[in-house]
């Protein structure tokens, strides 16, 4: 039986100057790199595949399988291969990669080197959102230190393997967390998604074979290489292997990062976090960010793994557990998320670009109490015309909070109409509400 919490990626976050190479090396950092360089690249790939690691950026696609989609090297057409790390963490509620890169950037850098070696890439990029200055400083310094120590550059550790790594800051666009939009952005263009196929594995960055993985996925690779695939696969559930960082925010007593085997429940996590705010009850929560359908009290015992959350009608996503208690108006919450999707829609596909504007208009009048009961059906019809009708999942995500909140809280929408406005006091939900 695995322990309740299992710090692996978070284990060194409280260490003195954890972000430096010397602190990282003192806890065995870069030992996995030597192990990997002593293996054939294919064997590193196999280890990651056998570990059962699935993408930690939300979609949950098996990382090793994704690597295996790269076409075999073609001597006739030797295109370079690239590894791109998606560190654009912007999904509302998601806050795991940013503290990881601030506290222990070398975990990610080591993961990049091992993963690049495994897929035979000689260039790698970390695409980090621009709005996190200190995290970018820490990444830049980690990459510089890694070059100075010979972990990056030419003939790494005498292996004959070369790798160049660039830290690239974005400029404020949620859509760049979508992997093909990220590639366009990294090519110096507007960040708009591409139609697939071709998939990035075949034609990605500069139309070359490219692997894009989330920062937490890549940061998990050194521990897998060091401890073995079966060690990782032995944690979590059968189909959702390993550990992951669960991010609790909102109305719990001790919000924060809790690293646990996949399959833990929210009931357990809330207990660990000291419970819901005093005098209140859990009302609704997101299992994996705002793009995953809302859950309620009835879902407290859903196993938080890919299969368990999907079976209950939502998605594990990024394990961004935003907890809202009974002081919060669900209509206000959903309207705000919808405004976010409207702002962040890249404009490429009509259903998403126009649809998110219509959604905001209808939700606004409902929240003000100016709407009509038929507006709820209108919203669902609009969602139906957005879901699945665009290049990427942004529009799909915009419909999740709306359809799920109408499913569980239809009466609360109607109460706005009956009372001619919002029945909730926004002051009651603030962090300082209790102390005043």
């Amino acid at each position, binding site marked *: 039986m695995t322990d309740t919490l299992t*710090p692996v990626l978070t284990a060194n976050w409280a260490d003195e100057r954890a972000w430096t190479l010397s602190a990282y090396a003192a806890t065995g950092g870069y030992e996995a790199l030597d192990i990997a360089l002593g293996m054939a690249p294919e064997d590193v790939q196999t280890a990651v595949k056998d570990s059962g690691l699935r993408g930690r950026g939300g979609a949950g696609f098996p990382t090793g399988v994704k690597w295996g989609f790269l076409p075999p090297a073609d001597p006739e057409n030797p295109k370079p291969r690239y590894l791109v790390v998606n560190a654009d963490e912007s999904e509302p509620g998601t806050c795991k990669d940013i503290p990881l890169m601030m506290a222990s950037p070398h975990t990610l850098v080591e993961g990049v080197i091992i993963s690049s070696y495994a897929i035979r890439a000689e260039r790698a990029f970390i695409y980090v959102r621009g709005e996190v200055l200190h995290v970018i400083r820490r990444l830049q310094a980690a990459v510089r230190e890694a070059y100075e120590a010979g972990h990056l550059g030419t003939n790494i550790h005498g292996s004959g393997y070369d790798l160049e790594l660039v830290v690239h800051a974005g400029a404020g666009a949620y859509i760049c967390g979508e992997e093909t939009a990220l590639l366009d952005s990294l090519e110096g263009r507007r960040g708009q998604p591409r139609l697939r196929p071709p998939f990035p594995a075949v034609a990605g960055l500069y139309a070359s074979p490219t692997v894009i993985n989330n920062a937490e996925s890549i940061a998990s690779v050194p521990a897998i290489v060091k401890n073995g695939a079966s060690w990782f696969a032995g944690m979590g559930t059968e189909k959702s292997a390993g550990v992951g960082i669960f991010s609790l925010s909102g109305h719990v007593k001790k919000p924060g990062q809790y690293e646990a085997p996949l399959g833990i429940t929210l009931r357990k996590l809330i207990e660990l976090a000291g419970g819901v705010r005093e005098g209140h009850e859990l009302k609704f929560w997101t299992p994996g960010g705002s793009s995953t359908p809302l859950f309620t009290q009835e879902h407290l015992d859903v196993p938080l793994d890919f299969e368990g959350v999907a079976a209950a009608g939502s998605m594990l996503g990024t394990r961004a557990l935003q907890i809202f208690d009974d002081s919060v108006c669900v209509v206000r919450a959903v309207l705000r998320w919808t405004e976010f999707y409207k702002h962040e829609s890249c404009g490429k596909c009509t259903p998403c670009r126009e649809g998110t504007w219509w959604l905001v208009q209808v939700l606004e009048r409902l929240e003000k109490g100016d709407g009509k009961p038929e507006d709820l059906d209108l919203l669902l019809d609009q969602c139906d015309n957005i879901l699945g009708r665009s290049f990427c999942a942004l529009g799909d995500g915009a419909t999740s909070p709306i359809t799920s909140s109408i499913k569980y809280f239809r009466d609360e929408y109607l109460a706005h109409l009956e009372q001619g406005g919002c029945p909730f006091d926004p002051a009651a939900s603030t962090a300082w509400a209790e102390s005043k």
Partner: protein
Amino acid sequence: MSLAPETFDELREIAARYPQARSGLLPMLHLVQSVEGRVTPEGIQACADVLGLTPAEVSGVATFYTMYKRHPVGKHHVGVCTNTLCAVMGGDEIFACLREKLEVGNDETTADGSITLEHIECNAACDYAPVVMVNWEFFDNQTPESALQLVEDLREGREVVASRGARITSWREAERVLAGFEDGLVDEGPASGEASQAGLRLAKDNDWKAPEA
């Protein structure tokens, strides 16, 4: 006014980091902002010249991203998260207080040029809600009172230190780091904040560990 030759050198230096020069455009625009205080027509022309693009192509990129500003930004950029979780936890009230105190609307700059106020989207620090960013440094667990004190300190030129980060310099200096030029402040601030360590502390107290290999 065209940009200084040294700036052109740095723009070329950024472009040279990539297999294809155009990939440098986003960090190049960050550098333009650090030099010009916004994305100016001269800065757009300079990027276009270095990359062999038209100014229209560069403008098309610059206008896509929220962090690029076409009007002058104040010495400091103050961003208040008003995405759902922070809004509910008090971000809406903080933003309203700052608007009133600074007498500006969203994405506007105070008359003295000291502060540009903006409501921002989720900045990946939800466990520290409500969050305020100054020049993209984290100020955690804010209240209306702490945020008002923060902007007053910034306007008075007092030393201000981020919750998890370095002492505050200026928006322009921050933009230079985003362009890929280190500023020597990496070792300031902690490895992580209290919330980041919440699970780690519990694990230590209970002697919970990942199994041995």
